[in-house]
């Protein structure tokens, strides 16, 4: 599994919530400009894992974590979560554009909320670039100043992707980004993810095995908080080494 350079390395990562050991000794490296899918039965900790990478778990009362998580040379676990989140963007299960803001302001929300002042030109540039990257520009360019909530679910989700991309994140985390969408919108998002990997490293959680096989380069299989298997997607799907992985995949395919 020697790919090109790794960007995010977890060593011996453990996470407890009160007395529950949710993630156990996770060692995993994510590679630049690849799409990595994290799969596993529900409750295996895959969402918790991805939320550790932008320190969103810090909000859970009683959470404790240990080990190391390096983004290049920096240990994310020792940084201020705010700085981590500016470098690691995230898109959630349900589209969540800010209902009080227009499409335009939603894209710029990261700057606005961090108190970063931009000139008008910079703003226009960022909005156009981000919406183009999220393949939404053509659909909304005439309605930029309308509220984001009038868009369809799929469009809203792409708006959320644009909002995350606007901050130029090193890594984009996707937490089951299509689970609330219809098949057509899902297909569009999947297409977009494949396009985006030339620009940004993507780590996604999915419960949809077909989706993982279609768009990911690498796949990690998590079971009861442990990393069971991690390899190229092709290998995981055709030549998995662990019976757990096989059982999971075949049951779902069956």
């Amino acid at each position, binding site marked *: 599994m020697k790919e090109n350079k790794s960007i995010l390395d977890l060593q011996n990562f453990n996470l407890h919530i009160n007395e529950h050991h949710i993630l156990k000794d996770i060692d995993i490296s994510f590679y630049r400009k690849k799409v990595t899918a994290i799969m596993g039965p529900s409750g295996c900790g895959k969402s918790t894992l991805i939320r550790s990478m932008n320190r969103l778990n810090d909000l859970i009362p009683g959470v404790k974590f240990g080990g190391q998580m390096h983004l290049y040379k920096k240990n994310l676990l020792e940084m201020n979560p705010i700085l981590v*989140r500016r470098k690691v963007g995230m898109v959630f299960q*349900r589209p969540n554009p*800010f209902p009080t803001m227009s499409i335009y302001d939603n894209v710029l929300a990261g700057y606005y*909320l961090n108190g970063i002042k931009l000139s008008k030109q910079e703003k226009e540039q960022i909005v156009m670039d981000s919406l183009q990257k999220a393949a939404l520009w053509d659909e909304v360019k005439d309605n930029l100043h309308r509220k984001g909530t009038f868009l369809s679910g799929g469009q809203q989700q792409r708006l959320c992707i644009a*909002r995350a991309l606007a901050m130029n994140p090193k890594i984009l985390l996707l937490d089951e980004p299509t689970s609330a969408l219809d098949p057509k919108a899902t297909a569009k998002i999947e297409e977009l993810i494949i396009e985006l990997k030339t620009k940004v490293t993507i780590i996604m959680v999915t419960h949809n095995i077909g989706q993982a096989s279609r768009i990911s380069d690498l796949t990690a299989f998590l079971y009861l908080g442990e990393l069971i298997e991690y390899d190229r997607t092709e290998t995981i799907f055709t030549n998995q080494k662990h019976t757990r992985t096989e059982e999971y995949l075949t049951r779902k395919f069956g």
Partner: protein
Amino acid sequence: MIKAQTLQSRLIQDAFFKMAMGVLSSLLMLPLIFILFYIFSHGISAFSWEFFTQLPKPVGEMGGGVSNAIIGSLLLILISALVAIPLGVFIGVYLSESRQGRIPEITRLCIDTLQGIPSIVMGIIAYTWIVMPLGSFSVLSGGIALALMMLPIVTKSTEETLKLIPDSLKEAAFALGAPYHTTILKVILPSGKSGIISGILLGIARVSGETAPLLFTAFGNPFMSVNIFKSANSLPLLIFNYATSPYQDWQRLAWGASLLLVLFVLSLSILAKVVVKK
């Protein structure tokens, strides 16, 4: 075994019950119509240019107006709003942000208890806290008494509104690297804006009709006064003093003031409903 009722009689029983409940409910419209009609018919005749612009006249002189009470009421509302709104919204945010734990629970209990405290007691509190140390009745003390009444209303509506805002919005803001305070101030509060404003309007409507807390605080006086450290008149105080007076001309002013007050309070309540629907 007692003979089972026939279906027929059961249906009649149901229809009768429904009618009884309906009649009881509708009866309630009568006093409302009486009250509103009475106030309207008596109050409208008092309305005139003079009524809004002049001071009350001494006994025996015809005419006069309630301009000092209008200004006094506005001043009292302004002071109470300045105190109660920021504090109430903040407490509401605190309660919706910390749903568990001992301190929030006690805070919630205190807010509920504050809401139930009789308004006259609030007046006595403001009297001992402000009138006694400063040595004089004042608009300030009246405003504080009203703020104590308004505070729980603003807090409750803020808490209820913010609790309904999905956590996903907060997560979205955090995921963009927004610090906690910006997330609350720029994302969460704006999302709950209409609910909070509606609560504020209801709070203002509630206190603008209050009389009891003003009896020994703002106290009332027949002159124009905008000094917040001195006593001043307000519409409810004027109604109380003039309604119970034996002079017809004063009673006429009181009816006019009643109509003005009712119109003001009811339009605030309606506004509060409209804001929340949008």
